[in-house]
């Protein structure tokens, strides 16, 4: 009997990986083949020693070392963001302070209001039409009604400060 073709199935059977009909087939063959029985026995021994050889866990300090390295790395990565957040916070605060300090200067000063008092134009008296043609002399007489003295031109500059008013008076 060629047992090489059973090797794979016996190896699975030795590890408990076969069930039902597959397991029954292997068991039947093992009942008839002492070489495969020895092969299965050796495999089981090997697996048992393999499992016991790896049963020991690393020391608690080995786990702690990994945890510490990971936490240190995560905290280190978080630092630039914290620093950036701090710097941007300071920058925003400085910008706000600057804005508050310069706020009046940023508003355009109110232009002085020009308040000029212009005297009324002198009234011209109506020229009465000639009653009759007087061919001799044509005389036009113009009278300045009441001919008041001209009032001086006054220009008043109102600055942004209500307490400061500039007057310019021109005669």
């Amino acid at each position: 009997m060629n047992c090489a073709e059973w090797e794979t199935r016996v190896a699975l059977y030795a590890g408990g990986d076969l069930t039902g009909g597959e397991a029954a087939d292997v068991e039947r063959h093992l009942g008839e083949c002492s070489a495969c029985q020895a092969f299965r026995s050796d495999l089981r021994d090997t697996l048992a020693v393999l499992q016991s050889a790896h049963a020991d866990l690393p020391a608690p300090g080995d786990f702690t070392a990994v945890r510490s390295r990971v936490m240190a790395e995560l905290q280190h990565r978080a630092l630039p963001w914290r620093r950036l957040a701090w710097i941007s916070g300071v920058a925003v605060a400085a910008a706000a302070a600057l804005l508050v300090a310069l706020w009046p200067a940023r508003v355009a000063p109110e232009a002085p209001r020009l308040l000029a008092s212009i005297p009324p134009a002198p009234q011209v008296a109506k020229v009465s039409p000639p009653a009759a043609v007087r061919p001799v002399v044509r005389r036009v007489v113009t009278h300045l009604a009441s001919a008041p003295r001209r009032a001086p031109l006054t220009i008043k500059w109102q600055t942004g400060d209500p307490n400061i008013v500039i007057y310019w008076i021109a005669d």
Partner: protein
Amino acid sequence: MRSLALAAMAEPADNLRERSGALAAACSGDLPAFERLMRQYERLVLVTALRLSGNLPDAQDVSQEVFLKLYRNLGKMTSDEAVAGWLYRVTVNACHDLRRRRGHEDSLELAGQLASGGVDPHQALTGGERARALELSLRMLPEKERAALVLRDLEGLSTEDVARALGSSEATVRSQVSKARVKVKGFVERYFGRRS
């Protein structure tokens, strides 16, 4: 055999509730909660990495890498079972990456160690020497067979969970596990100068 779901339920109910709480809190960026989450899964990650890489410093490097990756992917973890399956998969992949980076140095070194076997048969009876042979034989296996053997026979996962963790079919896992068991047995026998 223990499945991932059963592994999670092996803890007392109170721990399970805390576990869910730790995962939820860690997802919201709570670092102390993430540290608690690490404590719950550190055995799974470090021991699996140790069995796959064969030495503690490498296993610790892999564990660190895996937990940092977990932190970045916390939002994708819907349950504790999902975390365990994800951790097995990422740990196996990280160990494969490490092995590829190392190249053939390890294989040559191991081949030398195995060639120097053939010790006194009386020494074969000592557990320490046999364990050392098993350790070396594990490291000589192709990486997929080793991962299948470690997850199935040492971590005790079901074939279905191993297939999920390795991204393979169950038939492939069964084939890998079977070959790995036969090879380990052969390595050990050669190491002790015996032939079957």
